[in-house]
């Protein structure tokens, strides 16, 4: 790192992610946006670096994600997922758009469909918070080999075949680890249903 003074986020930021996003959506609240930026910006940049971007590109992509958050704050549906999950999906889509230049926009099409059916998987907000906590726990409790495969997919943006090559495993083993990880997650989530 150079002498540049790093921006730090305040620790209790994520307690009211939802309230902050709502303030951005309803009141175009710059201060709320700033807090979201300080919390998520460095994490998105970290994610982009882990998936292969150089630091400058990663920062550029992080800014783009945050600008998208500003524009689309009104589209965030709390009953469908956590703010972190929503920010992840924006980052994922920006990553795909910028790095791959796809001829189709599958994720946007699905997101649009979800908008047409508001509350399709409607849940109480408290239930969503509980769900968030359970997913975090389930991830932490995964056997290291399963967690690794999930991380390589989400964070490092690696296709299954690439993961297989990187870990020296048959493709089938990579797939079964992903299935097992998903099954454990489901099992954990069943407890709130």
């Amino acid at each position, binding site marked *: 790192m150079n002498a540049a003074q790093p*921006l730090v986020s305040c620790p209790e930021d994520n307690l009211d992610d939802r309230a902050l996003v709502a303030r951005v959506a309803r009141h175009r609240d710059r201060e709320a946006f700033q807090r979201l930026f300080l919390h998520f910006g460095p994490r998105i940049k970290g994610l982009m670096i882990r998936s292969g971007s150089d630091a400058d590109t990663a920062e550029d992509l992080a800014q783009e994600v945050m600008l998208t958050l500003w524009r689309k704050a009104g589209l965030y549906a709390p009953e469908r997922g956590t703010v*972190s999950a929503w920010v992840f999906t924006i980052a994922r889509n920006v990553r795909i758009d910028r790095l791959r230049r796809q*001829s189709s926009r599958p994720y946007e099409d699905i997101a649009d469909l979800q908008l047409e059916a508001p509350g399709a998987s409607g849940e109480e907000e408290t239930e969503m918070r509980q769900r968030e906590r359970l997913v975090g726990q389930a991830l932490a409790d995964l056997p290291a080999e399963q967690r690794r495969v999930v991380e390589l997919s989400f964070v490092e943006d690696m296709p299954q075949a690439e993961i297989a090559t990187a870990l020296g495993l048959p493709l089938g083993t990579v797939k079964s680890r992903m299935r097992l990880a998903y099954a454990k997650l489901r099992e954990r989530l069943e407890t709130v249903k």
Partner: protein
Amino acid sequence: MTIVHHPDNATLVSYAAGSLDEGFATLVAAHIASCDACRAALNEIEVVGGALLDTVEASPMSPSSLDRTLSLLDEHADAPAERVEPRAKDTPPGVPRPLARLLKGGLDDIAWKTVAPGVAKHVLPASKTARSRLTLLRIAPGTKIPDHGHGGMELTLVLEGSYRDVFGRFGPGDIADLDEHAEHQPVVDSPEACICLVATEAPTRFKGFFGRLLQPIVGI
């Protein structure tokens, strides 16, 4: 549309992660567009992305980045926050939205090219960096595809008609997510032709004798 066959959970996880190549991602999205179960599963898996984003090692932004971003907000100042994104309303019947972007019209407007008796195909556009290919296949009623295995990942989504094989009956909306060990002999059992979307890795690595025989057909 009653959907019986869904993508493998490993495929859904990769889709949620964003790590499926575009052809596969488009095909899975085309399934999810009409599958409430997979859409709900997707929402669940995306929470994993959020949890990982919370734990990923943060990389400090440069000191000017916040000011720069805040100054860019002004350009978006008049964009109402609650605005709903424009949608592709005019999707032709039977064509899922993610696929509609790649077609000029409906399934009836496709310029089919016959590649084998009873089998016609149409290769869909892909971006230069794509490592997967999307192909539409139209297979005449009663056509039997010879017994074969698959090289690499291959997904099939039925759009119209149906076929039957050792894994069951596949109708509109159903996905066949076959791994490289799967062998089958699909037969079109609908009175009309079976039209399906097939995503394969490019360049397609067909294995074995039947694989090479099927190379010009590509798919199911």
